[in-house]
């Protein structure tokens, strides 16, 4: 007996030695994955500077940040949903419809299809409320009735886009109220308010996802929903709330874009969901849920927009931009696959 005990102890001892190295490496890799795109961003900055010395000028950088701020908020919203293990394709239509409904209710009839029945000050609350309602409806179908999230939101993408076309008559809403233009035309401390909104949203999201129980619950649900439920997380409620928050954020993003362009086009946001998914995956978010960080998602969208800016500065003809955009997504995906060293899911 004493004999077996000693071998057992040895075995336990051997066990203790074995894993000593890997966890440290695992930790470092986990940290590095967050920063995986930083070298790429630096390289693009250098290339940009070489292509055109304007690149690193404050005005150009602010321009890049402002152009990306609307889509970045959409990426933030989609990242929340992806980490929880779901997908929301309808965000791009919410991005157009939510400010569209606000404009429709507020803008005076005449040139465009406005109703003019609500005072202009209501624009922002209406936009956000429409976003929240769309998210709640998605949640009803996906969480409550257990419909397939991908197809539900694909259906919603089409329905919501159609609704925007319907209320606008396929035209663009002009003459938006002052409240809708405010955030894109005002500067706070020398920087457009929309950039502040975007950066603050990301900062809040990073803290919530990294340092609060609801945030960690998203990772737990995306990683293993049964285990999350066993740990006492109200998985259905968290998922539903996530869908509502994501749609509300999409509405906010749409509001920023409408403000910057001083109009709501019937096609606002159309096709953007692909860029959004690309940015998230480049930023290290797993499409299977449970993996990735909000900071990573931010670097993903930043990298995409910097490359586009460099191409524009480099004088690439506008007709080629969209082909190059697709190529950029593929290249950025390959780059992040190499730097992270992990298969993308």
């Amino acid at each position: 007996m004493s004999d077996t005990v000693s071998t057992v102890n040895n075995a336990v001892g051997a066990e203790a030695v074995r894993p000593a190295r890997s966890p440290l490496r695992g930790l470092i890799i986990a940290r590095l994955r967050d920063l995986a795109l930083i070298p790429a961003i630096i390289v693009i900055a250098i290339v940009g500077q070489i292509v055109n010395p304007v690149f690193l000028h404050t005005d150009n950088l602010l321009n890049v940040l402002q152009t990306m701020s609307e889509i970045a908020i959409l990426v933030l919203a989609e990242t929340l949903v992806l980490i929880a293990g779901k997908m929301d394709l309808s965000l791009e239509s919410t991005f157009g419809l939510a400010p569209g409904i606000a404009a429709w209710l507020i803008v005076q009839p005449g040139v465009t299809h406005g109703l003019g029945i609500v005072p202009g000050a209501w624009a922002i609350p209406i936009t956000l409320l429409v976003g929240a309602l769309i998210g709640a409806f998605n949640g009803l179908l996906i969480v409550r009735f257990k419909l397939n999230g991908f197809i539900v939101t694909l259906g919603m993408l089409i329905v919501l886009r159609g609704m925007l076309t319907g209320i606008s008559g396929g035209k663009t809403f002009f003459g938006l109220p002052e409240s809708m233009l405010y955030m894109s035309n005002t500067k706070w401390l020398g920087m457009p308010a929309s950039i502040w909104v975007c950066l603050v949203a990301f900062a809040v999201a990073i803290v919530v996802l990294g340092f609060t129980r609801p945030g960690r619950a998203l990772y737990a649900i995306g990683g293993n929903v049964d285990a999350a439920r066993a740990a006492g997380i109200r998985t259905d409620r968290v998922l539903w709330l996530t869908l509502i928050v994501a749609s509300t954020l999409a509405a906010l993003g749409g509001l920023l874009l409408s403000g910057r362009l001083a109009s709501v086009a019937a096609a606002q946001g159309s096709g953007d969901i692909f860029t959004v998914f690309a940015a998230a995956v480049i930023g290290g978010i797993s499409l299977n849920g449970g993996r990735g960080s909000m900071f990573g998602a931010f670097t993903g969208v930043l990298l995409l927009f910097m490359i586009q800016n460099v191409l524009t500065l480099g004088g690439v003809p506008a007709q080629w931009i969209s082909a190059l955009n697709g190529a950029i997504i593929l290249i950025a995906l390959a780059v992040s696959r190499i730097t992270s060293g992990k298969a993308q899911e």
Partner: protein
Amino acid sequence: MTEHAAALDDRPAGSGRPVVEATHISKRYGSTTALYDAAIAVRPGSTHALVGRNGAGKSTLVNILTGLQAPDTGQVLFGGRPAPSLSDRDAWRREVACVYQKSTIIPSLTVAENLYLNRQGTGRLGLIGWASLRRQARQLLAAWSVDVDVAQPASSLSVEQRQLVEIARALSFGARFIILDEPTAQLDGAAIRRLFARIRALQGQGVTFLFISHHLQEIYEICDTVTVLRDARHILTAPVADVPRQHLVAAMTGENVHLTSANERPPVSAEAATVLQVRDLAVTDGMEKLSFSVRAGEIVGLAGGGGSGKVEVAEALVGLRKAASGEVMVSGRALRPGSVPDALAAGVGLVPQDRHREGFVPLLSIAENVTMTVPHRLRRFGLLAPGNRDRIARTLIDKLTIKTPGPELPVASLSGGNQQKVVMARALASEPKLLVLIGPTAGVDVRSKETLLDAVEDARSSGTAVLIVSDELDDLRACDRVLVMLQGRLTREIARGWNDNDLVAAMEGVDLDHV
């Protein structure tokens, strides 16, 4: 039943209140009785074994003991107090925890976060303090001497480490009674020894275990009391030392030790051609190589419990799995490893393990399903001829008495037993030289079982070699001999005429001759 009563009285006295005591537990699901008047009482500080064959009611009992399901009748007491209500998960967690075979760890999160999921301590501003969380986790693991780095992602844990982390998590809720559901199933020998050392150490710290295992040997090694369930009933509870192995196996399989059914047939003649010849087959690297053969007109059983490797071997034979090394010959033709088309061409018919996944296409008709492996036989003028297809299907439907209005019915609308007959029909459609049947009667009713086994016998008498891979004794009765696998090795070959206890003992890895 007298044995039942006597056994409960046998309980060693003077050990205080049982940690958990369940009495007169009954549970039904629809028309099936999962538990009938079952009882179990676990003394503090003991390691109590719960054994029984598949379907004996073990998992239902575990679900009731962990508060996942309420019993229809009966009562559960923890330390003499009635169990909390089902909705109060936290209260249950303080009493009992179960480490399942299926992980309840979230792979993408760190070990520390898994330990304190949804109860992460928050500091100022209501934010999670990661440093203190990791310190807390390190202290917890150190207190139970679990040597795992808490900062690593849980996905990098081995099965063994994962179990220890789950045990530590359970202990951190305050539970001192832990159910281990077949903890050794996925572990190798050395890891099993370490786990047992760990169990003994925790026992010394006042933790009580309920240990579920299919390997009786392990129960003699680690447990002090054993409870046997059979057919939803409590059979006996007694100190392990007082139950001879033979007795334990008999309690699991039933008192009536009957010999193999009497449909005697002469042994396969020595001149019969060897159809299947397996040489030095190792499914994965490092697995012990195994060799065996099956003659024409012979039925050979490949038996073993879950995790014995029997299914893997069978899947390697038919090309569903690529073996690491070794050779499989069918009628003198070497099969290409990992190629199903090659196996089919050589004349192998297969009933796969999971009929829903690999057995049939649910929305296609019976005719299309059964002729899926034989498109060449349906051809007329180079096109698939529905007439030929239906003719072949009708023959097989008659032969296997598949209950259907016609061959055009989708398989999805058939009952489980009839679906399995379709799978068997598909295997027979090619008129194979070798039939490989993995769990051919799993989850089917008695009548269908008989029909399926009759079809096997028919195929055999027409000269087909048959390999039945199963742990169901009824499937194996018709075998000329049974090869028994245990933990990836061929351990025994049992000739026709075995009795149930011998075979079960061999599958469980118990040596009845050395009690």
